[in-house]
């Protein structure tokens, strides 16, 4: 770490770079899930740069911690953090969504290093994470398993099947996180299909539940530290977030779920994300070429 830069400042810088990468990917490819990528930039930053025991040089290391992006459509920010952490080269990010790219619209474990399980159809990742956590115990391994779910995704019945099973098997090596940005594709969660009382639901399913501001590095780190101390129970972190966080015109707007971006929007977004004029110009010219 550079002298004079605090841990928190370093994480902030990384999360900002993830958002810049997301805007560039969506801008250049002409499509992408923006809102739900932006809302989890801090969470992924903490997982990949503070919490998880991983080795980009050895992505198949058997004792590594496992991460499951159950909300697979947030692939842009996932690819951004995998490149930032060194699992994939940065220069392939602009190939996202291309037919022969290893960066498919939803993460493919057979194509992209660092992806533990292919996801995309919602509701399935937590079950897979339960299998990993259960398997870790069977093999006598001490690694931990992290699953990140969408809030709308929690409307899928399979999530609650998985919740019951994690509780039955007392999987204290499992942490699930919900990106509670309050929006789903077609509208407000509270109107489409309310989740509340979410805290009570998960508590009654036998989970240790922690509620935090999902954009606060300190709160995310503290919650993950707390989860490590919980015994005989899986932990759930309800991360209250803002969909599209970090780019004012995307924030809390349902229409920024899956989008294409005009050059002007890319320019405005990158400006807000503190990119230099030169970096913005390069991106815009690459958009034209693409």
């Amino acid at each position: 770490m550079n002298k004079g830069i605090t841990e928190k400042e370093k994480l902030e810088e990384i999360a900002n770079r993830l958002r810049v990468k997301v805007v560039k990917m969506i801008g250049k490819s002409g499509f992408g899930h923006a809102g739900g990528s932006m809302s989890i930039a801090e969470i992924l930053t903490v997982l990949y740069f503070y919490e998880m025991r991983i080795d980009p040089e050895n992505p198949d290391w058997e004792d590594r911690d496992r991460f499951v992006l159950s909300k697979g459509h947030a692939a842009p920010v996932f690819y951004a953090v995998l490149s930032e952490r060194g699992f994939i080269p940065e220069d392939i990010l602009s190939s996202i969504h291309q037919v022969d790219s290893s960066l498919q619209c939803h993460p493919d474990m057979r194509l992209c290093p660092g992806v533990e399980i292919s996801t995309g159809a919602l509701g399935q990742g937590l079950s897979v994470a339960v299998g990993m956590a259960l398997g870790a115990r069977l093999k006598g391994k001490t690694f931990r398993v992290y699953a990140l779910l969408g809030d709308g995704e929690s409307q899928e019945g399979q999530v609650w099947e998985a919740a019951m099973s994690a509780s039955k098997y007392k999987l204290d090596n499992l942490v699930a996180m919900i990106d509670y940005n309050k929006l789903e594709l077609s509208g407000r969660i509270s109107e489409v299909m309310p989740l509340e009382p979410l805290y009570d639901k998960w508590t009654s399913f036998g989970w240790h539940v922690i509620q935090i501001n999902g954009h606060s590095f300190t709160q995310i780190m503290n919650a993950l530290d707390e989860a490590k101390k919980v015994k005989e129970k899986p932990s759930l972190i309800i991360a209250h977030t803002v969909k599209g966080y970090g780019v004012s015109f995307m924030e809390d707007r349902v229409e920024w779920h899956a989008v294409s971006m005009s050059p002007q929007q890319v320019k405005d977004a990158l400006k807000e994300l503190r990119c230099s004029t030169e970096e913005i110009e390069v991106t815009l010219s690459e958009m034209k070429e693409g």
Partner: protein
Amino acid sequence: MSEKIAPREAFGKTLVELGEKNPDIVVLDADLAPSTKVSYFKERFPERFVAVGIAEQNMIGIAAGLSTLGFIPFATTFACFASRRVCDQVMISVAYPRLNVKIVGAYVGLFVGKNGATHQSLEDIAIMRSLANMVVIEPVDGLETKEVVRFASEYDGPVYLRIGRDPMPSIVPPDYRFQLGKGLVLKEGSDVTLISSGIMIEDTLKAASLIEKRGIQARVINMSSLKPVDEGLIVKAAEETGKIVTVENHNIIGGLGSAVAEVISEKFPVKLKRIGVRDVFGKSGTNEEMKKKFGLRSEDIAEEVVSFLES
């Protein structure tokens, strides 16, 4: 003829045998262990037995997660639930990532005790066959079931096993070894070829004897490897015997009949008659009542074959 053995019985016992040798074999059950006979595994290896309750979708996901750590999970339930209920979970979490998960559907086709239409699986072969990366196998008797379960445990990738409920006479020879993509000629003949799998093999063989009395020599093939099917053996039959009849415990849409039609229509077109459930749902009743209702008794098959040859 030796004692009859139910494929599910052979399945349950073979899992235990394999489990003794291989600590990576784990079994998942969606509350049907006494029926699917994974209860034997549960008794012997309780620590490697995962009871998920009546939650098949979660079962497939947990199996996928376990397989990423090198386990060889057998996810077991009735065939109707193992296919229809979890179709998307199998596609997304198993077939697409090509994970080493074995999905076992016991109680297959029309023959599910007296459970009736809701518990019958007339679509499972069609569903599983259409998933890329998936292998589909239906063993006929106790010995072939044992072989097929061994094969599944050694094969690296998704497998769907269709395991019958009711006792079957021994059909395959004592030295039989299952090979993926290979069918087995059970009876030679040159006038017509009857291709079947699973429980229908018994009635198909009887039908072949019945028509033999009328001077028709039928070749009978056990096509336990439903995907991939044995293209070479099918084409050879088409070349040597002309007409082909398929007999299946499944909807005639998407199952064995369709698989054979796909091969001959591309490679060596001959006339085909598909015997099976003709795009309707089932009923509750005994196996005999089912066979009568849906025209699957040996005498029904024999009649169909004769009139097909005359047509």
